[in-house]
């Protein structure tokens, strides 16, 4: 690998200050960034490690009953510690990568990376969660801005994601068999006010999106049968060796029905 400095800040404030340097980059669990550095697709001269910052780790509830998950919380911790309060999200985290990846990879790293096949964007969009940084709060709909692109500015740290907890929810992922990322993943959430969110990932070049027609049908009746006759258009979806756009469009319908049936 090429030479770089490794910095371990003692606090969020110190991390933010270290990231003012335009040559510096945040390091979460490194499950995406370390392979990226090794391929020299990014060559920061300084890495600022966020993994040890207690301020941005762990799960708590705010006054509005939202589940607030720190940006440096690992997928493994979310799978375990969110299971009782938000089983849909815990189930999603439990199926990211493998146990070793889940022990290192973090929510903040995944969200900041915005891989078009990443799992969390589906849940964040479906529940209308808020991404919190050390500077501001960003609504789900404004945060994800296309493949590997987000509203984050240089050096901005994802400190937390605040999820309104649905009445019931589930994530269904159809895996791309080699990478095990989502070929298509769908998160369905029935919110406390009866509104329904359907977040889709893996299907489009621009990354996660909401399937509004399905949301309306499910808000009227939360049952897989409510989706009968409804299909997602293939236009604009990814076609590659793993599946063409029509196949992905079909999978969106199948995964949505399965998620509704599985919602708890």
């Amino acid at each position, binding site marked *: 690998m090429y030479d770089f400095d490794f910095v371990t800040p003692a606090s969020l404030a110190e991390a933010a200050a270290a990231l003012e340097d335009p040559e510096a980059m945040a390091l979460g669990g*490194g499950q995406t960034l370390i392979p990226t550095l090794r391929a020299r697709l990014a060559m920061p001269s300084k*890495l600022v490690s966020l993994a040890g910052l207690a301020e941005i780790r762990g799960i708590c509830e705010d006054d509005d009953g939202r589940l607030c998950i720190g940006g440096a919380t690992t997928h493994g911790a979310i799978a375990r510690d969110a299971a009782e309060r938000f089983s849909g999200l815990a189930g999603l985290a439990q199926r990211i990568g493998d146990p070793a990846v889940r022990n290192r990879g973090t929510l903040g790293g995944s969200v900041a990376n915005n891989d078009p096949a990443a799992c969390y964007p589906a849940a964040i969009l479906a529940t209308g969660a808020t991404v919190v940084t050390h500077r501001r709060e960003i609504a789900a709909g404004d945060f994800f801005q296309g493949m590997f692109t987000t509203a984050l500015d240089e050096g901005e740290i994802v400190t937390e994601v605040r999820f309104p907890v649905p009445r019931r929810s589930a994530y269904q992922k159809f895996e791309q068999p080699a990478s095990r990322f989502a070929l298509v993943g769908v998160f369905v959430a029935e919110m406390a006010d009866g509104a329904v969110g359907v977040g889709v990932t893996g299907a489009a070049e621009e990354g996660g999106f909401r399937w509004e027609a399905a949301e309306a049908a499910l808000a009227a009746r939360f049952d897989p049968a409510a989706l009968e006759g409804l299909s997602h258009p293939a236009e604009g979806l990814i076609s590659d060796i793993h599946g063409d756009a029509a196949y992905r469009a079909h999978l969106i319908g199948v995964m949505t029905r399965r998620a509704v049936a599985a919602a708890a």
Partner: protein
Amino acid sequence: MTDLTLTVNGKRVTRDVPGETLLSELLRETLRLTGTHVGCDTSQCGACAVHMDGKVVKACTMLAHQAAGTEITTIEGLANGELHPMQKAFNDNHGLQCGFCTPGMIMAGVDMVQRYKAEGKTLDEAAIRHELEGNLCRCTGYHNIVKSIQQAATEM
């Protein structure tokens, strides 16, 4: 260069290590613990699996400095006078052929048995197969690996 202190297989070590050093490089090249294998070097195969503070991680996808202050256990640190039940189970069940994936399989196996015990969950055959998602074996076809972990789960 920066000083790095961590515990490896119960021994405290301090080394002057450049920021870009991988944990797998520190273990294999600096500490000469070559039981931790490097297969894919891209976090897919799990041959490099070690435990950090009791949890499985892939040493090829971690910087050595990310392990500062932690306790690392490698395959060399598992046996305690006699083989660990997981090692013995792989031996008993012919859970390996060429052996390249085996250190990683064993470290992943120990992690899953301990985690399921701690959470009070049953580690059945289906669960073992799912848990092994990040460990690839080019030889065995996995059946005997699964049997080995099943046996060890009853003995650990």
